[in-house]
Every structure is written in C-alpha cells, then in structure tokens.
C-alpha cells in the first residue's frame, strides 16, 4: 500500500511539474505586466484549466505587485475546468496582436497605476440552476484616486467583456473608475452539449 501511495504521489508530482512547465511556457508569452488585469485574469483561468493551484501561481507573481499594495487572495477550492476551456483560452493567448497590445501597455494602463492600494482576488464554485459555476472577483482599491479613462479598451478588457461570454458562455462585469477596478466573472463549469431542436 505504501509503495502504491508513494508511486502515485511521485507520478502526480511529475505530472504536475510537467503540466506546470507547459503551462508556464504558454503563459510566458504574456510578459505579464500585472496592471494588465484582463490578461492576469485570463492567466488565472488558464491556471485552473491546467489544474494548477492559484495560490502557487500567485506566489510566483506576488513579487510583481507594487510594494505599496496589499494583496488578498481568498479561494478554498481549486476548480477543475474542462480541457476545452484551456484550448479556447490558449488560442486567444497565442494571437499575435495580444503581444502587440502588451508591448503598448507598459505603465500607461490605469489599473494598479497608483503607488498604494489593495488588490483582492476571490473565487469560489457555486451551484447555479443545478450546474457548477466558477465565480471570480478581482477588486483593486486605490489609496489615492487616479484619473482614468473609463472607456479605455484593450485586449484584456475585450477578453473579459466579449471573448469569455462569446466562447465560454461566461457572464462578466468590468467597472473601472478613479478609485479602482471591480471585475467579476461567472464561468459555467459544465459545458452544455448540443440541445435537441425544439426540445
């Protein structure tokens, strides 16, 4: 029994390591300015899609949060997403103009633009109409308000507001103002199969 458990643990470790490295290779294309919130959220979903732990991911990224910001992460479960979610999101990530958007982003993106603030990332899985749904919220509160262009659009915002609802049937909300950013994503985890016409 001990040998079986040890073997399973080792296999799981190897599998996780390989998947993590593969995942990071996919994610590496983002170059990752933390202020580009949409990309970060997409990365979070990618992490889940690859069966990784969000906390582990955030630990790697925590150093990129400005020193004056407090970062709070709340989320007990590690939701598992169907493989098709991973495929869809990686397809988005690989598009060349994503890289172009990020190259243009640098410090001119408003999110996390102030020196101090608090970033809260929370998620949980909830049953909605009998189906599991991942509810994710990303809230940035700035200590000092910064004037922002509220209607600014970029790839990250387009991914949240358009691509996730279109491709993954998600419901999203994205509110950016001088005090910060509030973004929520409700992502159904059970993808519906083809429905009978007229049923």
């Amino acid at each position, binding site marked *: 029994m001990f040998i079986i458990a040890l073997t399973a643990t080792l296999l799981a470790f190897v599998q996780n390591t390989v998947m993590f490295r593969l995942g990071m290779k996919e994610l590496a294309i983002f170059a990752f300015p933390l202020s580009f919130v949409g990309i970060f959220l997409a990365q979070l979903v990618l992490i889940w899609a690859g069966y990784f732990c969000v906390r582990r991911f955030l630990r790697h990224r925590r150093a990129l949060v400005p020193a004056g910001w407090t970062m709070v992460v709340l989320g007990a479960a590690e939701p598992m997403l169907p493989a*098709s979610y991973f495929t869809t999101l990686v*397809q*988005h990530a690989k*598009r060349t103009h994503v890289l172009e958007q990020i190259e243009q982003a640098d410090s001119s993106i408003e999110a996390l633009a102030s020196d101090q603030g608090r970033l809260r990332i929370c998620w949980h899985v909830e049953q909605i109409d009998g189906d599991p749904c991942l509810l994710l919220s990303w809230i940035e509160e700035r200590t000092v308000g910064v004037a922002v262009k509220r209607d600014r659009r970029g790839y990250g915002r387009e991914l949240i507001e358009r691509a996730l609802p*279109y491709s993954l049937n998600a419901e999203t909300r994205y509110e950016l103002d001088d005090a910060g950013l509030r973004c929520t994503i409700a992502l159904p985890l059970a993808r519906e199969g*083809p*429905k009978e016409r007229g049923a």
Partner: protein
Amino acid sequence: MKSPGLAGKRILVVEDDYLVAMDIARALERAGAEVIGPAPAVEAALDALEQTVLDGAILDINLGGEMAFPVADALMARGVPFIFATGYDAQVIPVRFTHVKRCEKPMASEQICAALFG
C-alpha cells in the same frame, strides 16, 4: 475595400473562437457584406439561419468539440452556398459535403467571395 461580389450579401459566420470570428466578420464588412452572427455554436447558428434569409455562410467545423455538420445540412436543404473554414482535411468531412470548398484561416474577403460565389 468593397468587393462587388460580396456587397450587400448576407453572410452567416459560424466560428467558436471569438478573435477569429471577429477577423472574418471585419473582412466581410470591409467588403460590404452584412454579417449574420457570428455564431459560436450549432444552436446559435441554426437560430440565425431560421431568422434570416442568407446569401452564404462560412462554417468552422469544430465548434468547441461540437461538429458543425447539422448547420451544413440545414444550409444545403435551403440551397445556401457555404464553405468550411478549417484546418481539417477531407477525411474528417462526411461524404455528402465533399463538394463543399474548404479554406484555411485566416481568409481574405476575395478568397471568401471566390469560394462562395466564384
């Protein structure tokens, strides 16, 4: 630039990848076509098909794991010309669709026009 072959034509776009769908839709609109959809799944495509008289359609074959062949059947039944926008090779496509043209993505509007109406 408007294309005489596509100007005013109502073209249904069926594609599950948001960015690819937007690329195709933009190319069609630039050519003067009226884009119906885009539809990310079979059900949405069939709904659009029932609500609009179409001049043509562009179908991705794999819609998030769901094959688009019911949409192709419905288009054939209505006599609407369509093409497959896919990287799949001919072996995957049912025999009844072997005459349907296949185009690799991304597609230029001229390529779409020639495949649909050429």
